[in-house]
């Protein structure tokens, strides 16, 4: 009985008795959710336009942030470093298209998936070789990002919001809005959606696959850079981020692999669910459940809606 009480009743009693803590936890969850969502967004972009499940998105985040900080440490002014990093991400996109995607066109999904594994390994080695394996500090001030926190009085307690988190949320929303417009309203956006549906059909109406792939990987690179800056500002720039990036997978499951709004909503759900779970239920089993809770949430969700949050019901045809 006690166990049932501590699982089903007690956490909610706690939430009710200290609403300020609840709000704080929710906020923390939303913030990490935004970052998951940003990584998931990178996945979705590439998956939509090339059908490639890009395992390397996580390492691209690390790589982008490392390049930025590394350049700054090498004496390049912050803004110039930012521009150079964008250029590096463009080169990466071109390189991936030339050396990985083009030779592997028309191969099964799993082969392309594996190729991005290879890319991950390569980028880990390359990043460590050039910038060293030690964690670095993000150049927050130099990029004119705000620091410190805002405190609200709420429910008889204090809720503190980091300014950088607020900035992250704003940047994320702007980026998503821009991408939505890009996808829906522009000529390239239409081409992207066409490629996503069928490579062959897109080729047959004169869309250049190679060009589209470069654009998409470059866009994903920019998203990765933004994610890297935000994440780096919160903690530090290190390769440990790569494992955290795997959290984008349950996010994708919730939101569906091809839906931009899905990635955002999924990210927020996972972020909040994870923080609430860790804070209120974690102590029951010895904490640390953050490492797997996201996957279990996604799994439970899948059992009821195998097509994801925004996916349409699949009718199998034969």
């Amino acid at each position, binding site marked *: 009985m006690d166990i049932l009480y501590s699982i089903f009743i007690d956490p909610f009693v706690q939430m009710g008795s200290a609403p300020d803590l609840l709000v704080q936890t929710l906020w923390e969850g939303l913030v990490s959710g935004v970052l998951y969502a940003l990584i998931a967004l990178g996945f979705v972009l590439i998956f939509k336009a090339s059908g490639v499940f890009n395992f390397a998105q996580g390492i691209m985040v690390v790589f982008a942030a490392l390049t930025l900080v590394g350049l700054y440490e090498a004496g390049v002014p912050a803004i110039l470093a930012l521009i150079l990093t964008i250029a590096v991400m463009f080169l990466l996109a071109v390189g991936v298209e030339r050396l990985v995607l083009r030779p592997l066109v028309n191969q099964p999904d*799993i082969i392309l998936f*594996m190729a991005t594994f*290879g890319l991950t390994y390569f980028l880990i080695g390359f990043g*460590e070789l050039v910038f060293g*394996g030690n964690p670095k500090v993000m150049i927050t001030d130099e990029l004119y990002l705000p620091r410190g926190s805002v405190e609200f009085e709420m429910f008889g307690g204090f809720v503190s919001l980091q300014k950088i988190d607020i900035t992250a949320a704003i940047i994320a929303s702007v980026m998503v809005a821009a991408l939505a417009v890009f996808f829906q309203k522009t000529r390239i956006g239409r081409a992207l959606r066409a490629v996503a549906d069928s490579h062959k059909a897109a080729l047959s109406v004169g869309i250049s696959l190679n060009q589209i792939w470069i654009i998409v990987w470059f866009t994903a690179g920019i998203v990765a850079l933004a994610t890297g800056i935000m994440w780096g500002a919160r903690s530090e720039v290190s390769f440990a981020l790569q494992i955290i990036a795997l959290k984008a997978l349950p996010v994708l499951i919730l939101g569906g692999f091809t839906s931009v709004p899905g990635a955002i909503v999924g990210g927020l759900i996972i972020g909040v669910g994870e923080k609430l779970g860790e804070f209120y239920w974690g102590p029951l089993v010895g904490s640390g459940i953050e490492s797997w809770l996201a*996957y279990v949430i996604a799994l439970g969700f*899948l059992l009821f809606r195998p097509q994801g949050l925004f996916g349409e019901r699949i009718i199998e045809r034969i």
Partner: protein
Amino acid sequence: MFYREAGQFKTNYAADMAVFPILQDKIGIAIILALALVVIPLVGNAFFLSVVMIPFLVFALASIGLNLLTGYTGLLSLGTAGFMGVGAFACYKLTTIFPEVNIIVWIFASGLFSAAVGVFFGLPSLRIKGFYLAVATLAAQFFLQWCFIRIPWLYNYNVSGAIEVPTRTLFGIPVTGPNASPEMRYYVVLGLVILLTWIASNLVHGRIGRSWMAVRDMDIAAELMGIKLLPTKLLAFAVSSFYCGVAGALMVFLWYGGAEPEVFSINQSFLILFMVIIGGLGSLIGSFFGAALIYILPIVLRGAPSLVGLDIGAATVEHLTFMIVGALIIVFLIVEPHGLARLWQTGKQKLRVWPFPY
């Protein structure tokens, strides 16, 4: 010229259905077995046996396990290391609770534990396919690893949080623990790997293997032919996890001699997935090739600079190794997406007509 099947007529179906229907293949496999059983232990030193051969065999076994699931049944799994961990920790608990029972028995029993856990995490495969299933297995991976860290009972409340392998004997000779000789450990691993490979080969060549492949290639058609999807997939999960569990137990008991939960991290799962893909999905011999390439290549790469007299720091070599392995994976996928096993087949085909072009 020497590798020809001309003149070898099969007069009954049993001969035609043999795993190695061609005489030259039979001779080849006999030579490999002789090498593994006699020549390598005689020639190889302790370092070669315990640093190269034993790990290679352990990885090969784990790759076969994952290959049965991913290559033969088409279910992508990223939880291999978790299932290996279940085997290792189960074996540790069993042998510390019942020290008098033979360790070989417990190695198999720990495989059964792993199989049970595998079946449990395989249940979602009824409704989930492809990458979605990969996430389900990620849940297994992270959950199991968390258990290895957070449940002290599993490692007998050791302060270090790691397990240490006690000495266990077979016919009075120590096979595990600090006193076991590399030769003895090598023979035990080799024996188990040969046995389990033979069983895997039997399974995939019979009704069960055909059902697995049918589910992989066209699950709807398979079901319309009377193959029940869930039991077939769960059986694949069970057998695969059994192999991984045994591999995990071997890894800790006969290779490392002790282990921290870190050993069974997600990176280990990825490594074994590489082996399977590079070796060749749906090929048992490919699992051996893949394990050899992915495991032995970094060893060679690490040793290479000092061999040619270059003085590069250890960290740099490590980073270069990552880069080279990553690049090689991509190159391999481009050159031969079906893995080393397909190269092997193409090579045999060439040999068949050699010295003529066709």
